[in-house]
């Protein structure tokens, strides 16, 4: 009896949290289509007409389009690099015995234990001395380097769990070590690659601290960095609707990806956590 009485209350709690999560996002979308005057009047009113020109203004004048392109270049490059190097490293450490194997593995995985803030100051000077401050390739290399420990850690366990017989058969067929990896083992590791790929993509897409320190050139700003700079700079304080539009444009790609791949994304990210 008691159970039936509490049931609606529990549903209400679930609904309340769903509303709490949705409300700020829905409000941002709504505000991005209003005029500034409408925004100031009340947070609740529906826009009289949809002001898509806010989006156009954010895209061009506020350079959100440019930041998006920069982000795609840097994240795309870093993701490709870390997936290639990470899977190779994990495979070698998981499937080949050689002196120093354990040492290399633990040295790599230890990178996950340190807070990035500890490395921040020396990292700035390392990148500076290499002449890579504010360059695409500098950011790509640093992103890939910091994503490497988790990638190796995750895929190491994955390659260990694959059967050895297949690789041995490949060698008997005359495969070289490299082609055994690329043609046989890598395709078998696909589920693990997808999980860690999603994990890395989101992690790199959302980077804020590293570009803030290493990427001082406004023309090369990545999305998170550019948006934050817009919000903080006084000049754009007056253009609320444009800033809301920029915010929504920045959220949109992630939202679309999530709607399309929500199951893979959730299992990919949670698998990353319990490893």
């Amino acid at each position, binding site marked *: 009896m008691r159970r039936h009485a509490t049931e609606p209350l*529990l549903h209400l709690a679930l609904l309340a*949290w*769903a509303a709490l*999560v949705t409300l*700020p*996002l829905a409000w*941002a979308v709504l505000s991005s289509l209003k005029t500034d005057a409408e*925004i*100031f*009047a009340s*947070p609740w009113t529906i826009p009289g007409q949809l002001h898509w020109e806010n989006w156009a203004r954010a895209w061009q004048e506020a350079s959100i389009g440019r930041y998006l392109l920069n982000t795609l270049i840097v994240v795309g490059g870093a993701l490709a690099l870390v997936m290639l*190097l*990470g899977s*190779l490293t994990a*495979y*070698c450490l998981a499937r*080949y015995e*050689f002196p120093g194997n354990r040492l*290399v593995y633990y040295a*790599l995985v230890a*990178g996950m234990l340190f*807070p990035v*803030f*500890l490395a*921040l*100051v*020396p*990292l*700035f000077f390392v990148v500076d001395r290499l002449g890579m401050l504010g360059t695409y390739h500098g950011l790509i*290399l640093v992103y890939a*380097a*910091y994503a*490497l*420990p988790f990638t*190796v850690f995750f895929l190491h366990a994955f390659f260990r769990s694959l059967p050895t017989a297949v690789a*041995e058969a490949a060698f*008997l067929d005359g495969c070289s*070590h490299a082609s055994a*990896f690329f043609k046989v083992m890598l395709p078998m590791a696909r589920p693990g690659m997808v999980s860690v790929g999603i994990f890395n993509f989101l992690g790199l*897409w*959302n*980077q804020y*601290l590293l570009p803030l*320190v290493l990427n001082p050139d406004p023309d090369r700003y990545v999305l*998170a960095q550019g948006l*934050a700079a817009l919000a*903080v700079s006084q000049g754009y304080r007056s253009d*609320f609707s444009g*800033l809301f539009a920029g*915010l929504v444009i*920045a*959220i949109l790609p*992630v*939202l679309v990806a*999530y709607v399309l791949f929500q199951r893979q994304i*959730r299992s990919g*990210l*949670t698998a990353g*956590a*319990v490893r």
Partner: protein
Amino acid sequence: MRHGRTRFLIGALTAPLLLYGVFVASPYVQAFYLAFTDWNGLSGQARNVGFDNFTSLWSDTAFLAALRNNGLMLLVVPVATIALALFFAAMLTMGRAATSGVRGSGVYRIVYFFPQLLSVAILGVLFQFVYTPKNGLLNGVLEALGLGGLARAWLAEPAWALPAVIAVMIWAAVGFYVVLFAAAMESIPRDVLEAARLDGAGRAATFRRITLPFVWDTVQVAYVYLGILALDGFALVQIMTVGPGGPDNATEVIGLTLYRSAFTYGEFGYASAMGVTLFFITLALTALALRATRRERVESA
């Protein structure tokens, strides 16, 4: 089969190890050295100053405020997030013996999880708007509910600025742990839950005696992750708060003090000392969290 083995290994491992060595390992090692110098960024000027940087930390009001604020976050964020997430996860997986969880369970998971995908920078910008006094969402909601008296300039009042930041951290994190815990709860064998039900155990008793011990490993992992999250807070504070770090150091965090010392004042040795301190705090807390929760598991099992 042995043919070309060494060549393959060298070819495969050189690039990643070089990348890791240059951009990750060497900065970490250098930080421990720099922490004992007064380096200000000009080459050839680094002087060994022993533990001076570390002793100065204890009379640095900004750093002490940061320690206090991160400490508060550390007390509140993991416990509140885990409690909320356990509650929602339990409700989503409840009554599983009959059906597959509560009606709409899948939709709730999809919605709850989404904030996890947002960059902290986006969260900062979004919630700066939410907390805006005049046309912000929060005050608007309060007024619509007839609670207009509670409306205030959230980020401008020293007493409310830190809770406002903490609320954003919890808001963004809960959904992820709901999904994580719900998955763990679904792996509890059905007959165990069935047996508890036949023994007349109510919901609360089932949760405490069966569900919680089963998911405790996951909770432990969550605690460590959330603790690390609570020691950060840099991006949110830097974007959202006045100052940033204000008002009156009310939202200062270690990351922000470090960032400011290094990249505004050029005190690179001093900033490195903060980094080293942060590292040892992280290390100690991880060890502590793992130990504390382990003992708990023995008691509740």
